[in-house]
């Protein structure tokens, strides 16, 4: 096992934990780590998983050629199997009978503070994209162990400041959302979006707020209200054009679909899922409609049924909804509007499992004339480099640009696309930074941003009129 360079204890912590919560890292790291690990094993089913991985991990290293981080860095600690092995070695040594025997027979492995430090760094160099699992002959899900490692570390005070501050605000803050947008600001934003839509379409589409007994309760990544107004306008335009305007609502009790617990903590994951569901309960909604966000969609889609069991609400991604409307003829997209070359980035959280792969492509191909695929794409796509919550950690911006997103940047360049569609708030942020960093000649936007340009709304201005008006405005 590679040892991390150390000098004095304090400088180690300064050097290794630049982006963790200050003052929370304990001195007795090893004891605390083992105590937290043992407690996690006591109350969860991870032991079964770890036993299986210990018994099967052949360390064949095929995962190394699948990992975009290792492909860019060439650093052995970025090999998924290597990272997994950091945790498996600790598990084998301290929590299995064979490990206990081996420790009596030899002193081959003991957990040290350096190894805990190494784990803290290694686990936050993984974007949890799960591409390595696709190329593992045994199907080991390395990102699951990365996440478990992060969970244990978080229990001893080692967690990313950016993620921790966000989830704390979401669960305990006044605003209950990760961007600290108060209700009054949300209402102002929705009013602004309504005005923008009216100006564009000539129709007043007032966003429904706190309406009871609606079919859909809508949760966007809350940052969209600050940074991606066109995505939210696109969502509204689709629902309006489909004639479902009286079937949806946004709740002011909780309007954030983000769940960073997915990246590092079972406790936060569960409680944020429950908070989201409690808003649907309050509004007596029937379904959860998630906006353009990969991890928000996955955390609701995969974990609402697990934490809420039979009380679970169906979770629908907005692209599933849009395709359904398109296929039923409820919306019409003008195919003469988008003339640029367009490509599509698959957000790992919704694509890797095969859940949302074809839907956006069917929508795009219905109105985009020059659509090109990245290679590879779909369930085999490369991560944008900001997955697993890394995009929120500004302190590792250089890592995200030079290593995490390097492969993706080259992929984008090869398509020659002028528009890069990325239906995920996190991917969009990372890709916008990548495009700037690598000086790629393309614009990053959401799928609904593009739909907004081409959608035809009965009684409203045509897409052609809107395009001409927009051109005049830009002049």
């Amino acid at each position, binding site marked *: 096992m590679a040892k991390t360079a150390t000098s004095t204890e304090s400088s180690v912590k300064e050097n290794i934990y630049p982006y963790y919560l200050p003052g929370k890292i304990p001195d007795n790291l090893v004891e605390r780590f083992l105590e937290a690990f043992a407690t996690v094993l006591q109350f969860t089913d991870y032991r079964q998983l770890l036993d299986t991985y210990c018994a099967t991990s052949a*360390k064949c*290293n095929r995962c190394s050629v699948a990992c975009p981080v290792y492909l860019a860095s060439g650093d052995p600690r970025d090999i998924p199997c290597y990272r997994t092995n950091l945790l498996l070695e600790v598990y084998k040594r301290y929590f299995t009978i064979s490990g206990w025997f081996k420790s009596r027979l030899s002193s081959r492995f003991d957990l040290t503070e350096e190894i805990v430090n190494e784990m803290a760094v290694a686990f936050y160099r993984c974007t949890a994209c799960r591409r390595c699992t696709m190329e593992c002959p045994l199907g080991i*899900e390395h990102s699951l162990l990365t996440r478990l490692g992060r969970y244990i570390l*978080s229990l001893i005070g080692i967690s990313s400041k950016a993620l921790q501050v966000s989830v704390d605000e979401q669960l305990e803050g006044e605003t209950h959302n990760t961007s600290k947008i108060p209700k009054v600001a949300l209402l102002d934003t929705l009013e602004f979006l309504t005005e923008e839509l009216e100006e564009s379409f000539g129709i007043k589409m007032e966003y429904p707020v706190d309406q009871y007994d609606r079919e859909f309760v809508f949760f966007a990544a809350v940052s969209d209200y600050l940074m991606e107004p066109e995505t939210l306008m696109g969502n509204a335009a689709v629902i309006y054009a489909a004639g479902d305007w009286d079937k949806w609502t946004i709740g002011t009790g909780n309007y954030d679909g983000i769940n960073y617990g997915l990246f590092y903590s079972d406790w936060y994951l569960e409680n944020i899922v429950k908070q989201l569901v409690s808003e649907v309960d309050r509004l007596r909604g029937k379904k959860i409609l998630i906006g353009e966000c990969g991890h928000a969609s996955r955390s609701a889609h995969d974990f609402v049924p697990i*934490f809420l069991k039979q009380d679970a609400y169906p979770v629908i991604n907005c692209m599933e909804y849009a395709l359904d409307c398109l296929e039923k003829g409820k919306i019409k997209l003008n195919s003469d509007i988008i003339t640029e070359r367009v490509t599509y980035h698959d957000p790992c959280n919704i694509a890797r499992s*095969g859940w949302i792969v074809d839907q956006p492509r069917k929508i795009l191909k219905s109105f985009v004339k020059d659509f090109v695929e990245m290679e590879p794409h779909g369930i085999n796509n490369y991560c944008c480099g900001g997955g697993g919550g890394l995009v929120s950690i500004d302190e590792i911006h250089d890592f995200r640009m030079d290593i995490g997103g390097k492969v993706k940047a080259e992929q984008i360049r090869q398509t020659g696309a002028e528009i890069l569609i990325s239906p995920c708030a996190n991917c969009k942020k990372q890709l916008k930074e990548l495009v700037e960093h690598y000086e790629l000649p393309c614009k990053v936007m959401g799928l609904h941003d593009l739909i907004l340009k081409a959608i035809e709304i009965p009684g409203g201005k045509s897409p052609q009129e809107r395009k001409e008006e927009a051109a005049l405005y830009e002049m």
Partner: protein
Amino acid sequence: MEQWIEFAKGPLFTLTFLIMVLGLLRLIIPQVYLLFIRKRDVLRDVKWSKIIKDTLSWIIPIKHFISGTRLFSLASYIMHIGVIIVPICIIDHIVLWEKFFNINLPSIGQGLADYLTLITIACLLILLGCRTFKKHQRAMSGFMDYFLLIMVILPFASGYLASHPNYNPFPWDVMMLTHLLSAELLFVLIPFSKLAHIILFNFDRTSGVHWQLRPGAGDKIAEALFGKGVKI
């Protein structure tokens, strides 16, 4: 020496084979219990067809021969064919199947068995070479990773030499005893090492299934570590 060989062929073979079978059962029973009994209700929506399809995709892994792994993957794939077919279907072992289990298996013929054995050994040496000389493989290989490769080569090499006196520089009985003992050591190692993937190879793919988190587990962990009501 003759008595040692007889001992290795008889009681020692039975004992080590039994250790392997019981050891593998020890691994597989909890898996089956977890999936089909304890979590049966919460696994209603698991996409078993995808899990099966993914597993089967590795039987003819054409799409998995990706850049950077072709030599390793090809060697690994052929090696697996060899280590499955040769020990089971070689004519000398057919007799053992009949003797111990009363099972009549088809023989692959001496000629094919010889070629397959040599190819398997060559593939195992390529894997050993990759592990030794490729930077990213060496970085994470430990003693057991090299030792197990050698342990798999040993019964193949000794078996080939024992059945080909012309190429064998050692006494026949020494080679035969090496073959028997190395194979039996391998039997014992299988359930206690990564070689257990011979039986658990498809259970990793249910790891998504394992992530059926227990509701309330996070609270219990927080309470155990920090006390009731204390912020995590």
